[in-house]
């Protein structure tokens, strides 16, 4: 009897040891993977930091008021990014005004109105795939469609339309995802009070998902702001020493849309132009323009994070 008990406890401690060995082995593998992951991500981050740091070290000394208020020039000390940042700003504004209503409306239609049939599935696949089309292809399309067929020329409007097309899939997809995330219990609550579909969307679903939709819009815009290829394709200038006509006029009707038809350049093109010059001083200018571009993108992203935080704080379910 006592012996039986002994052998039983013995086999039990054997068993325990087996378990411990197995746990230790699996934990080791887990730890190894953790270390490997950390290593990979550190290398990636370090490279990125090094690149950005080099850009900042090179570019920041060049950043002063004059740099922002001067046109490009063959004299690197005189050269600035005035036409480039004004161009970027106006092109972004145009892009936003076109892409946001179109993209959000398309997202709402596809998610809330479109019947769920093969046509909707086809559109869905197309929209998702459009997000992955290389941007230069959009440039070619725009060159043919907007510049030539619609005769809009090499203007800010053409650029805005092109970039709007480029970010439209991003806006549509994030809008749909944001709408889909609203639980059906809230939709039913609105309908049960006699809301129409539009009232349900406008009074509830849209406000509750606005944080996520805005985030998508800003991610789209921060992609558009760095685009070079499609704008070069549609004929953006690489050297321009004048500004588009001001949107604000001193005479009635005080606002003007003439700037939409003006030629333009944007920051990444200006940067590209300077990088391709042989003089090392122009490399410094390029770095400075790069710093401005990076800061702009970071600001946009920070703004997106802030908005998401603010708008989601009161909204949970």
């Amino acid at each position, binding site marked *: 009897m006592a012996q039986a008990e002994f052998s039983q406890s013995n086999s039990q401690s054997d068993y325990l040891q087996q378990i411990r060995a197995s746990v230790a082995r699996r934990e080791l593998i887990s730890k190894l993977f953790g270390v490997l992951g950390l290593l990979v991500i550190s290398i990636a981050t370090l490279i990125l930091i090094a690149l950005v740091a080099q850009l900042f070290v090179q570019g920041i000394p060049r950043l002063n008021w004059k740099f922002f208020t001067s046109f490009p020039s063959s004299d690197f000390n005189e050269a600035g990014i005035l036409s480039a940042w004004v161009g970027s700003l106006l092109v972004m504004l145009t892009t936003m005004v076109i892409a946001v209503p179109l993209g959000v409306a398309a997202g709402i239609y596809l998610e809330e109105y479109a*019947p*769920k049939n093969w046509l909707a599935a086809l559109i869905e696949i197309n929209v998702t795939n459009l997000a992955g089309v290389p941007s230069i292809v959009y440039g070619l399309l725009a060159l043919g469609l907007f510049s030539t067929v619609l005769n809009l020329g090499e203007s800010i409007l053409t650029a805005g339309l092109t970039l709007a097309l480029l970010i439209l899939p991003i806006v549509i997809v994030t809008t749909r995802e944001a709408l889909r995330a609203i639980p059906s*219990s*809230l*939709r*039913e*609550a*609105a*309908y*049960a*009070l*006699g*809301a*129409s579909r539009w*009232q349900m969307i406008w*009074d*509830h679903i849209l406000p*509750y998902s606005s944080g996520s939709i805005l985030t998508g819009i800003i991610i789209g815009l921060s992609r558009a702001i760095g685009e070079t290829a499609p704008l070069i394709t549609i004929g953006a200038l690489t050297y321009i020493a004048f500004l588009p006509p001001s949107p604000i006029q001193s005479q009635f009707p005080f606002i003007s849309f003439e700037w939409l038809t003006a030629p333009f350049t944007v920051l990444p093109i200006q940067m590209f132009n300077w990088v391709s010059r042989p003089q090392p001083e122009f490399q410094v200018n390029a770095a400075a323009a790069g710093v401005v571009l990076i800061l702009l993108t970071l600001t946009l992203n920070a703004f997106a994070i802030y908005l998401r935080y603010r708008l989601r704080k*009161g*909204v*949970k*379910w």
Partner: protein
Amino acid sequence: MVDTRVVNSSVMERKAEVKNLDFYYGSAKALKSVSMVVWDRRVTALIGPSGCGKTTLLRCFNRMHDLYPGNRYDGEILLDGVNILEKQIDPIEVRMRVSMVFQRPNPFPKSIYENVAYGLRVQGITEKSLLDEKVEKALQGAALWNEAKDRLKEPAYNLSGGQQQRLCIARAIATEPNIVLFDEPTSALDPIATSSIEELMNELKEQVTILIVTHSMQQAARVSDYTAFMYLGEMVEFNETNLLFNKPADQKTQDYVSGRFG
């Protein structure tokens, strides 16, 4: 002891009547020739085992099924004599007269005030003083006014679960509907919140007709005047609550109310 029911029954009116109602989710038939009466300003309970079609029947009364494709009604629900299942009748119109309280509290992520005011706004009321008045009346009706009157601007999510459900009741009664539908309104609540909602129902029935789905026979016995027992999509028995529980006519009802299945 005076049975008030008998006294009242002389003036009792039919608020709604279900006649031979079939309902299909696509090709699946969930309700089979259901008929029943909903008496004006009484509480009618729907009981039966899970999956027997209580929720399905309830959601016919406000045409909630119209929101999803493939659903089909066959038969009639007369509300004040008019068949609300008729194709020409806009479900929105029906929902403005028949409101609903759901299984889980589902307030909008808006302020307490806006939650209650929403149904009124949908109906086109914009005048601030009228909104204020109706919001207060609804919150009082839902026994939430004292707790909420100083925090009307606060988000509804700051309320406890039981308070949220009472807010949903206030939202549902603010528009002074003909019928309020309750789908297991206390299944997500603790016993104290449950009993406060049951008490509330007793007060509400002075003003409004109530149809409640419940999985708890005790709850049906406590709150309802009439009870319908459903089984596998059919209406097995419909009667005054104490008759249905004490003298069930059908063997299945007998088995269910005595706890032999379900």
